[in-house]
């Protein structure tokens, strides 16, 4: 394999493919063959003859053995050096925030929390539909309305009726959003202080609802007109609380708050790796 390039490099010469004019002749022939279509058939003929002779010449270059030339090697020392011989390390102070808890939740717990919360927020939403509009489809259609064709200025009865597109779109939107929020939550969890229930259960839903309240007029005006923000907030908080509860009941892992922010971010760098390895070793010993 790769015979002519990589063999015999220990001697004073190296085999390299020999220069050849056949490829350029063939290329010129191919071009002329096509150029004949816009000029003159004779040019095509000339091109075909050239291309064929190029192909034959090329063929003879590689068969039965690829032609090569020997290039003499003159050995010279190349010094590989740098102007910056030293490398800085990220210094991790040992006493950094040692008083904080040293346990947190794995990334996957966020996804589990997202799924659980997504399921848990359905009952309050449905309940709202039943109480306010006597239809379980009302909140579903509000969410899925964007995907239902011809949905302009719907009446309340319209929204309360069953539309299979609405259900489908609502399920997709709901599932994607819950999973993503859960994933984001899980990814950032190890970086942030604990109290997932306070953060994810109360604070995040309130912020999220506020953000939606201000942008919903553009994102989905039908939803904006028909939405009951109180119930919306309840659903969101349900999501947050359940997600937080699920996360809180996952088994904890140790990478935690005694470390500086850069390590909680999961940054990979030589100095920190050593630190982390030694941390796990200590952990093993302590157990």
């Amino acid at each position, binding site marked *: *394999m*790769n015979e002519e*390039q*990589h063999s015999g*490099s*220990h001697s004073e010469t*190296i085999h*390299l*493919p*020999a*220069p*050849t*004019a*056949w*490829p*350029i002749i*063939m*290329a*010129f022939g*191919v*071009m002329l063959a*096509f*150029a004949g*279509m*816009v*000029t*003159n058939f004779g040019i095509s003929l000339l091109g075909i003859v050239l291309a064929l002779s190029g192909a034959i010449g*090329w063929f003879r*270059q*590689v068969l039965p053995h690829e032609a090569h030339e020997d*290039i*003499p*090697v*003159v*050995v*010279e*020392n*190349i*010094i*590989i*050096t*740098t*102007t*910056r*011989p030293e*490398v800085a390390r990220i210094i991790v102070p040992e006493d950094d925030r040692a008083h904080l808890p040293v346990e947190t939740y794995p990334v996957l717990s966020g996804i589990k929390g997202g799924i659980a919360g997504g399921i848990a927020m359905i009952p309050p939403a449905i309940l709202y539909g039943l109480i306010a509009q006597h239809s379980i489809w009302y909140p579903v259609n509000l969410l899925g309305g964007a995907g239902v*064709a011809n949905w302009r200025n719907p009446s309340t009865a319209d929204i309360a009726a069953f539309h299979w597109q609405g259900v489908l779109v609502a399920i997709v939107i709901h599932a994607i959003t819950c999973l993503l929020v859960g994933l984001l939550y899980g990814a950032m969890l190890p970086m942030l202080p604990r109290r997932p229930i306070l953060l994810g259960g109360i604070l995040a839903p309130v912020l999220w609802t506020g953000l939606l309240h201000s942008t919903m007029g553009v994102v989905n005006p039908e939803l904006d007109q028909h939405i009951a923000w109180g119930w919306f907030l309840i659903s969101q908080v349900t999501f947050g609380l359940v997600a937080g509860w699920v996360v809180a009941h996952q088994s904890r892992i140790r990478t935690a708050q005694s470390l500086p922010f850069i390590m909680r971010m999961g940054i*990979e760098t*030589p100095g920190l*790796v050593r630190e982390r390895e030694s941390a796990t070793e200590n952990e093993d010993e302590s157990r």
Partner: protein
Amino acid sequence: MADSTFPNPAVPIAGGAHGALDVTPPDVRKHSVLEILHSWITTVDHKKLGILYMLYGIFFLLVAGAEAIAIRIQLAVPNNHFLSPQVYNRFFTMHGTTMVFLVGMTMIFGFANYLVPLMIGARDMAFPRLNAFSFWVTAFGGLLLYYSFLGGSGLYGVGNAPDVGWFAYAPLTARAFSPGHATDYWAIALIVSGFGTVGTAINVVATALCMRCKGMTLMRMPLFVWLFVVVSGLTLVTITPLTAAQIMLLVDRYLGGHFFDTQAGGSAVAWMHFFWIFGHPEVYVLVLPAFAIANEVIPVFSRKAIFGYAAMVAASVGIAFVSLGVWAHHMFTVGMTSASNAFFTLSTMLVGIPTGIKIFNWLATMWGGRIRFATPMLFLTAFVFQFLLSGLTGIMLAVAPWNWQLHNSYFVIAHFHYVLVGAIVTAIFGGIYYWFPKATGRMLNERLGKWHFWLFTIGFHITFDVMHIPGLLGMPRSIYTYEADRGWGTLNMIVSIGGVIQGIAVLIFAYNMIVSLRSGEKAGNDPWDAWTLEWATSSPPPDYNFATDPVVSSRRPLWDLKHPEDPDWKYEA
């Protein structure tokens, strides 16, 4: 290959970490002009072919740039008569076609040819003769395209070049609307140069997969090489549909076929689909090499390893795959169903996610570094900024309803020139400043380089920032002139002035290359204190690249040599 003797034990150098390599000095025998010419024409050396690709690309950059300047002069004031409508239409068609196929494609393959074998520690490409054929057939295809200025309607007719737009929408390309041979030139020249493109793409993939030096596993390949594997794969599945569409066009024009003949039930929309199935991934074929250059230059000048190597590889592959499913966002106005419009809106927005990851990773690479703003890094910093902006205008265009307003307006022109000039050309300039010392043994003049950078960047922003506005004010593309009462006059004048400034900057660049080649500062083998294998041989490298086959054990083999106390392989393993 099996044994691993150490013939050159490291020689300690005061104050530096070190390693040692064997190379030869360049051949110093005197050659006649004819001999030199002969050696370049018959060469199968990837380095020489890479340089040929670059020179060819730069030549056509100047040609197509001149066309752009003429276009801008014509548009500088309303109701101008500098160019006739026919000449204007030929110029913008040729400008687009040249820039995409003869400048963009050749320059990126110039980089691939020169650097991929060096970076993976190989002696040449996998198929050296195919490599030569690919270059020459591409080159002759380009010459054929420009020959149309002389021989448009056959040798005896009045000279005219293609004038149907670089997208050549049917049925404007039918014999009934484009008599003569101008459109045939367009199709045939692109088919011919397409052969070369496909050949090189095959070559790059085979080289990267089959020619790696010992220890260079796939996950240790420089990101540059990774990106070019992705680019070549993408080229293989995008240039070929274009060739297929051109064959259909020629069947229509020569054999009386009806593929795009709307009178006989053919479909004009089918051409748009076929063209954009090629046309949109083509943008990524061009921009991924810009990413590739950024992935090499930004870490070296920030003095840090690239942040998130695996994520960068995944994002590149992701971009390639998603880009195959977004073509119809060029067709939001042709009357697709609302569901199709929604689908292509979504798929287009999805491209933003892997590209976002890349921008964040470059920022994280620079974060905490010691950034040296030499000319290559200046260009690459501008690249990141401009690419961010073009990505955001891309999101705007992906919003189908807004696209109904923006499509085919000057906003779109500004957007894709932001990608093509602001991202791709800027990165390529940076790449040339970075690797010129390796290819020639001499540094490009830093002072001229700074002039080039600042003039070019300022000119760029004057031109293309302002160019968005006439689009928002209702100015469509491809018009040779416009009414005076539309309020586009001043804006177009500013845009044209910016274009001239960019032209001057490019001339400075060309001057810099010529001067530095003759009398530039000697580069040495590793002027930027870099980490990939191409810097482990002399500048310019000998014909055989490496006297002995390199062996690597990490993504940054030269870092390992320079910092034996903190080698990468310790971390990566």
